[in-house]
């Protein structure tokens, strides 16, 4: 009786309706913001409703995941029942919907694997810098290029990198430490060179590296009296003699395309005491402030690369192919039916 209910079309229709309506409503509420956003932008009743029912993170809440799990059970039982019935009856035709059902189940499985096993991080690298990826391979930026159309819109962001695979990187590291410097050991393979661009990610083992952003950052050279110079970029802080901090916020001035030293401009700092913002300080190039002197400023390019490992995606691709094949079969049958009318 329970199984019959769980595989019933009535349950399927109710769940489809619920998922459709709640998903649509969830798009009307900005997702994933801090609680303060909702209390500040909605009435007391509405914000309490949003936060109580997890409508601010609806697609990870029990109100979505439990019905989705029930729908998965419904789909699985219905597909199994339908397929078993067809096999018993020896029916040869109309397997399209069965393949679609199986594809959807596989898709849900892929989604679950993605939800539980996906790893990602974004790295920001200037030209000539290297980073060790998860798994041990080393990625080093060779060249960064930003292309734009004549009207100023972005045309492409390209990051040329060289990738040393994990084994070669380990051998190189060991050689560097003098432990594997033997003439019998073959030289490690040359690094692979690849240009990453939007819609053209780099695959390194199970990882994929995507071009996600491109920045030109104004790097300030700051001299502290009696303590040498240092370079800071927006977001960095400088300690002050009064126990507070100066957070480098932005730079207003010349912005050349090249990496030449900038001659004129003003750096904007935020003054912080503990977690309280105490004010703003504007400092011209060459000026002294709080025991520091702004020596100079130079722009340099930074590429934002998104590194992703998604063990669920191969399952998703298989699921989509299966569902697409099943749907194609369904269409062919539908067209034939139409012809026979």
């Amino acid at each position, binding site marked *: 009786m329970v199984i019959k209910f769980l595989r019933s079309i009535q349950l399927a229709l109710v769940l489809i309706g619920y998922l*459709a309506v709640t998903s649509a409503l969830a798009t009307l509420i900005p*997702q994933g913001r801090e609680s303060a956003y909702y209390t500040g932008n909605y009435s007391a009743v509405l914000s309490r409703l949003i936060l109580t029912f997890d409508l601010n993170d609806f697609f990870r809440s029990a109100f979505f995941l439990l019905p989705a799990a029930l729908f998965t059970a419904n789909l699985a039982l219905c597909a199994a029942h339908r397929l078993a019935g067809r096999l018993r009856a020896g029916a040869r035709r109309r397997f399209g919907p069965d393949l679609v059902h199986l594809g959807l189940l596989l898709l849900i499985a892929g989604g679950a694997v993605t939800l539980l096993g996906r790893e990602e991080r974004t790295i920001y690298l200037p030209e000539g810098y290297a980073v060790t990826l998860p798994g041990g391979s080393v990625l080093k930026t060779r060249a960064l290029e930003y292309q734009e159309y004549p009207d100023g819109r972005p045309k492409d962001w390209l990051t040329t990198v060289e990738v040393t695979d994990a084994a070669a990187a380990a051998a190189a590291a060991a050689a560097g430490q003098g432990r594997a410097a033997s003439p019998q050991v073959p030289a490690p393979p040359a690094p692979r060179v690849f240009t990453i661009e939007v819609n053209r990610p780099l695959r390194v083992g199970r990882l994929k590296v995507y071009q996600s952003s491109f920045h030109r950052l104004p790097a300030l050279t700051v001299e502290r009296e009696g303590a040498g110079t240092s370079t800071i970029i927006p977001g960095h802080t400088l300690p002050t003699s009064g126990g507070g901090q100066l957070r480098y916020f932005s730079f207003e001035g010349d912005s050349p395309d090249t990496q030449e030293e900038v001659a004129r401009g003003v750096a904007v700092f935020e003054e912080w005491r503990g977690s309280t913002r105490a004010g703003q300080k504007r400092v011209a190039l060459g000026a002294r402030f709080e025991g520091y002197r702004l020596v100079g400023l130079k722009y340099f390019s930074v590429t934002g690369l*998104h590194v992703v490992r998604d063990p669920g995606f191969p399952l998703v691709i298989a699921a989509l192919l299966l569902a697409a094949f099943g749907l194609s079969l369904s269409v062919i049958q539908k067209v034939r039916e139409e012809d026979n009318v």
Partner: protein
Amino acid sequence: VSVSNSLILLPTVAFALLVLSAALQAVFLLRRDRTLEPVPASPPRPTGRPPRERRLDPTPPLLLAGAALLLADLARRSVQIRFVAVTGIFESLLFFAAVIALVLFVYRLRAGQRSLPFVLFGGTVAAVFLLALASSPLAPKEVVPPIPALQSHWLVLHVTFSFIGEAFFVVAFVASIVYLAGRSPERRQRLDRLTYTAIGIGYPIFTVGALVFGAVWAEVAWGSWWSWDPKETWALVTWLVYTGYLHARLVRGWRGPVSAVLSIAGFVFTLFTLFGVNYLLSGLHSYR
């Protein structure tokens, strides 16, 4: 011809042809004698009266010419930007209108005298409405090459297949409206059948285009095949509504007004996914 006029010359002519087609269809719908013949003409019916001179139906050639002009303009824009021109809202509307005209043309040819004139008329009006929308300030007409995220052949497949599927949803929507307004049982049965077959064909094409190709493009562009972006979510909701329609029809045998209302609801969701999300909600698809 000035630069701005040359940008919209072909779509304007296509618009005029489709308006003419809709107007002629309206005239024929208002006449009592609706015997129009597609090429070639079928044998006359034995009515006992002397056979009247048959008129050639201008609807199919006008639909075909309108679609051809719109596609020609898209081809011209594609050459200019060196990419398939379906990445802007103006181009998308042109493509959608062209596909609707083509679907109506094929339907008219295949159905012959059994075609349902109100459905053809409604579909033509929908194509005209889309072109009117394309001519509004909401759709910039400049020929501009795509930004990096849009330079993907997966995107082209995503957009074109989605619109082809949605063109069949237009036919289903109009048939459902006419069904609810109609009274003849025989005609309503044919409209119900047309709604069902149109969704039956459009649904898999829409699924492959909107969801499958969309997911692959998102994975290639951003490394995330699904993000619960508003456009993605609304496409999924639209898909769920049509899934509900087909299941209710196939498994529960739902027919008639409830089925027609579900088909209309599906198309309302389709329209919101297409336009409402772009202008009312922000997300990854906020390209104008």
